[in-house]
């Protein structure tokens, strides 16, 4: 029996050997870019629509025979949606969550499904070799920076739209540049340039947030997939599943946590930008 204190060093040692072994075994790595299958359709885009199809099928099955006393799939679907709704409601408030849940609910379940689908054996590992290198048929949707960036940009656009429609354009600008607190006379004159500078920093912060959202999700998912793939090259082919197995459980957790983190951060950003307006009103 291996004692627990030895597990981490052994895992670290195996991980450090992985690239060398993979190269020796002639293994391939998941390319960094999503590959086009034809036109603008990439292998990650196919996965995205498979995920959407599965979500829609599940929801249609759950809502086929809707009853006021839910059971079976309807019960599970309502529990999942209502739990998220209540969770976000506690964070953003009843008014805001009622308005924006369609986006946050969709994003959370979409990211979760896409993340889990990326763990299905064959995704990212089955494909063809060409002069450009290995091209997988399917690729985890969130292991494509274009997808995560698209989600972050969509959120950013909706973020500004919701902030402006909730508080008004003036309050939105005031939230960024106006002095926070009650200043009068000379203090106000001194504070104005400081808060203008703070506003510029806030603008940079706002600009960085979608970028951070994109890279965080992409990095975690792509990194996870790479880890699994590398671990499988550490041992002979027949036992390839073995070292990756514990990390599959970790990736299941990462898939959930990353979906939650993305949704939660978006919710917090929205709440922060809308909260200021509520104080003024």
């Amino acid at each position, binding site marked *: 029996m291996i004692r627990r204190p030895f597990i981490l060093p052994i895992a670290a040692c195996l991980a450090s050997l992985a690239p060398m072994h993979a190269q020796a075994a002639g293994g391939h790595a998941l*390319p*960094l*870019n*999503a590959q*086009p299958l034809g036109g*603008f*359709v*990439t292998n990650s*885009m196919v996965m*995205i*629509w498979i995920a*959407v199809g599965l*979500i*829609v099928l*599940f*929801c*249609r099955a*759950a*809502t086929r025979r*809707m009853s*006021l006393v*839910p059971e079976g799939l*309807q019960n599970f*679907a*309502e529990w999942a*949606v*209502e739990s998220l*709704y209540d969770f976000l409601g506690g964070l953003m408030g009843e008014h805001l969550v009622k308005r924006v*849940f*369609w*986006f946050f*609910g*969709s*994003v959370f*379940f*979409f990211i979760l499904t896409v993340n889990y689908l990326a763990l299905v054996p064959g995704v990212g590992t089955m494909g063809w070799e060409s002069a450009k290198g290995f091209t997988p048929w399917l690729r985890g949707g969130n292991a*494509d*920076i*274009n*997808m995560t*960036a*698209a*989600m972050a*940009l*969509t959120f*950013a*656009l909706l973020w*500004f739209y919701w902030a402006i429609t909730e508080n008004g354009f003036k309050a939105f600008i005031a939230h960024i540049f106006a002095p926070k607190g009650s200043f009068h006379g000379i203090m106000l004159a001194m504070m104005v340039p400081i808060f203008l500078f703070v506003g510029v920093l806030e*603008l*940079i912060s*706002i*600009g*960085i947030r*979608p*970028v951070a959202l994109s*890279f965080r999700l*992409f990095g975690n998912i792509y990194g996870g997939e790479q880890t699994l793939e590398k671990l499988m090259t550490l041992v002979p082919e027949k036992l390839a599943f073995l070292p990756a197995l514990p990390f599959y459980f970790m990736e299941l957790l990462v898939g959930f946590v990353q979906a939650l983190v993305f949704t939660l951060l978006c919710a917090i950003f929205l709440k922060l930008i809308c909260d200021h307006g509520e104080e003024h009103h």
Partner: protein
Amino acid sequence: MMTVLAAADTAAKSGLAETFGLHTPFFIAQVVNFFLVIFVLKKFAFGPIQNMLEQRRLRIAEGEEKLKRIERQLAESEQTTAAAIAKANEEAIRLIEEARQGAQAFSEQKAQEAIAQAQHILAKADAAAQAERERLAAEIRRDFGRLVVATASQATGGVLTEEQHKRLHDDALAKIA
């Protein structure tokens, strides 16, 4: 928005985007794609579930409202019932008092009637007794008169006249009257 674009531009210039596989045509395609994804999920996936949850929330709110209304009505009903019971009690007490007074008056009336009837019966009995006594006295006098006359006739040997008989009879009656 400007800062996002500026950040994207900077990233593109520095080759960061290229390093991570961010390509403008694919990025735009994914933005359009994601809009479609969101629309499809809203329309076909979470829309019906959210509607159901909203309906249930409304029903629960309605149920709670109904419960409050029923509780309010019950409280009102209890108040009305208590008032009706109090009123009925008052009415019952009044009726009992009236009945008691009526019974007392009736009882007194009946007693008076009984007394009057008894007195009437007694008076009648007295009158009857008096008449009987008088009849008996008259009969005794008549018999005594006849006896005196008969005795006198036998004692005299039947020599007394009718006039004497009558006088003797009247004298005897006068003496016993």
